[in-house]
């Protein structure tokens, strides 16, 4: 009886050892191959296909460095805050480990998201969604102010009419509103007064291109300020169209825009835009994902971390720093 029990004990020990060795073998051989990386979500508003190209280069670099997967959700041009919030909810339900969000409308998104309970970190980029959510953005007010100062400098050197029309589309995004405030602040503080005018579409059915072209026809602005990538692209396109339609006209408009898309850069290179303000979107994308993973893993996040911005003109476009930030090499 005693001998039998002893044999059972030995058998049990050997079986346990076999299970442990099997586990180690599985861990060593299969688990390393089979481990699925965490999935994070990037939800962006979008008006044109390459609007976030540089930003996405940054997130893709982070995806590679941090060994994670990223699921991209791009909203359609006419999507609303509700649809964006629904996308956030869906991503969380599908197991996202964190959300990087470019809100389409600050107040609307804030209202909806403040009523939601989040089990994963949510980080806004470029545009905020209220104080409850940290934002990774540039100093938009300073960028707007820098644009205003560049316009004033241009006015001072060229002696052109001191009149600026600001396109006030997409003001529902606080990034655009802050840029506007900074721009207006800089222009209003000029020693020599500047006539500041604002233009916005009377209704959304009015095509943006047609609307801007109508500004050229109706107001002949010497300076036009666009505060958003898409608006800048549209303004440059409208100006190109206007000039083609009015080849002999001496009227010249200098467009100051914000953007780093291939199209805005090309318009700058082709002198349809006088100067571009751009934020370092590669950094924004890379840091955004990095912060999300750190929040997830280390319960730490700096609120409202700022990324840098620069101003570029035709002359400085091929300087090393601008060349590296504005022209994708991937």
């Amino acid at each position, binding site marked *: 009886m005693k001998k039998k029990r002893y044999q059972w004990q*030995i058998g049990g*020990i050997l079986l346990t*050892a076999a299970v*442990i*060795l099997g586990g*180690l073998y599985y861990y*060593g051989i299969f688990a390393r191959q089979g481990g699925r990386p965490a999935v994070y979500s990037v939800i962006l508003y979008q008006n044109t296909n390459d609007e976030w190209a540089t930003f996405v*280069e*940054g997130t893709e*670099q982070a995806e590679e*460095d941090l060994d994670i997967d990223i699921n991209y959700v791009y909203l359609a041009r006419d999507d609303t805050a509700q649809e964006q919030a629904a996308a956030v909810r869906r991503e969380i339900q599908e197991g996202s480990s964190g959300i990087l969000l470019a809100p389409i409308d600050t107040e609307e998104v804030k209202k909806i998201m403040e009523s939601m309970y989040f089990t994963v970190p949510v980080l806004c980029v470029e545009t905020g969604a209220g104080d409850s959510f940290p934002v990774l953005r540039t100093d938009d007010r300073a960028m707007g102010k820098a644009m205003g100062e560049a316009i004033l400098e241009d006015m001072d050197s060229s002696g052109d009419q001191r009149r600026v029309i600001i396109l006030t589309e997409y003001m529902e995004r606080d990034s655009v509103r802050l840029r506007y405030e900074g721009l207006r602040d800089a222009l209003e503080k000029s020693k020599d007064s500047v006539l500041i005018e604002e233009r916005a579409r009377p209704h959304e059915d009015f095509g943006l291109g047609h609307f801007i072209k109508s500004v050229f026809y109706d107001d002949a602005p010497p300076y036009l300020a666009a505060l958003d990538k898409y608006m800048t692209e549209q303004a440059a396109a409208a100006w190109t169209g206007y000039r083609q339609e009015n080849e002999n006209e001496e009227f010249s408009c200098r467009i100051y825009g914000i953007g780093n898309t*291939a*199209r805005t*850069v*090309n318009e700058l*290179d*082709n002198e349809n835009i006088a100067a571009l303000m751009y934020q*370092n979107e*590669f*950094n924004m994308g*890379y*840091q955004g994902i990095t912060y999300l993973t750190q929040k997830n893993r280390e319960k730490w996040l700096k609120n409202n971390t700022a990324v840098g911005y620069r101003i570029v003109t*035709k002359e400085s*476009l*091929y300087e090393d720093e601008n*060349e*590296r*930030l504005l*022209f994708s*090499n*991937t």
Partner: protein
Amino acid sequence: MNYLKNKWNKLRTYINRRELQFMLSVSFTLVALVGMVFIGAFLYQSYGRAAEEMMFNDNRQLINQVEINLNNYLRNMMRISDAMYYNVIKQVDMKTDDISQELDLLYEVNKDSLVSVACFSEDGELISAAPVGSVKKNVDITEQSWFANARDKMENLHFSELHVQNIFENSNGRYYWVVSLSRGVELTTEGKMSGGILLVDMNFSGIRQIFTEINSRGLGYVYLVNSEGEIIYHPKQNLIFSNMLKENNKIASQYDDGVYEESFQGEDRTVIVKTVGYTGWKIVSVTPKKELLQDFSSTKLMAVIIVILAVTLMVFANQFVAVRIAKPLKKLENSLQGIGVDQQPDIYMGGSVEIQHLGETIRSMVDQLQSLTDDIVREQEEKRKSELDALQSQINPHFLYNTLDSIMWMIESERYEDAVAMVNSLGKLLRISLSKGKNIITVGDELQHARSYLDIQKYRYKNKFTSFFDIEEGIEKYRTIKLIIQPLLENAIYYGMEYMDGEGEIHIRAYTSGDELFIEVEDNGLGMPQEQVERLLTENSETRSKGSGIGLKNVHQRIRLYFGTEYGLEITSEPDEKTIVRIHLPKTEEITPEEGGNRS
């Protein structure tokens, strides 16, 4: 120091007290553990060195592979430039001939790796380009670095830094990162020779492809710098361009070909440098130590877990082996504990051959010991018997003197018949006492001996007591040791009758019961208390030497020596009433010659 010494001594004491099984198990485990640690440390070192060596070899192979691929790529670009120069430009007169078709053809054939091919005059005027394009309005070609380098050193091929191709009008919004290959060329215009610059813009994607493929393998990464330390390719180029990452490219560009250990931004790493021919570019392979260690540490963790598991198994295995070795010894030891207690201990004979042999030897020794002990016991018993028999056979001199004195007195007083009867009784008494040296006699003889004794004592005590014999018929034939009733009668007379006022009675009874035989001597004398009865037959009891001089104890011991401890005397007494002494014997008839003894 004393503390340690005390601890060490305590440990030694503790170990010395433990069982063999524990000692074996611990010793095996310790020896195996030390061996494993040594082997593990050796393998760890060897594996570490081998892993590092392997990493170096892998990275060297990677770098060599990159160099081969890059050289092929660059040679291809140079061949394009050579073909354009020697097969086209040198063969035509720029005034009359158009080279655009040849340029287009060359571009079309190589457009996967080319962005543009163009020929400029020494003033920077575009002569021809493929794909067809015009130079941007505000661009001064002569200020481009690739143009200036080619103009200054006509004989060489020049590779520029990585830059965005920015000289041609670009309406489609597509910009290309290029490395410009430029060279000075001789142009013939209306028979006159003039200088010119041939530009081949290599698409950066070709270089990136070579490195991307390489960087997907092995540890660390590989990047490319020009001779000034400007990065041409880096797997994290955008991070570096965005100032989010630093690289030690400036220093690396100054390294000669070889392997270097460096510390950059707090990170120890191994750098292998290889120079690319024609260009002065350097391929730099970087392997951070922590990556190597990380890979190694996961292996180390695995090894540690396996070692722990092996040690655990080893402990059990050693326990098993120790049990197998120690258990037979333990069984043998346990079986030996029976020696001295058990006359025939069951010596364990299992286990290995050696232990079986040991068991057999011990068993043989125990048998011999037992035999010797038995012999000694037997001899001692015989000796004891002889002593007791000798004692028993002695006639109390007082008894003999008094008897003879009585006979003499009878003769003097002319009581001849009484004297004859007394002499007759004494004769019978002496005859049976001698019994030809036998110790075992019949119950009949023994009873006769008792009668003779009583007859003599009756004369001496003037019929102060009366004796009664109640003898079972046929009991005379059974055997008994001789002279066992007489001491009982002597005690009855001396202690029962002597101090009695009335007439004493002594009853002698002999009877059988089953296989047992009993002879009782009962007197109606003074009797004795129970405590005294209990002391009479014990070792420490005083021998009452009055009378025959041989106590009841001797009778008791003799019976036990001859017939076994279950036999002997039994005494019951009631003070002032009576005393019964019962002889308990086995009922046996035959008297073997051996039992007869040899006393004479």
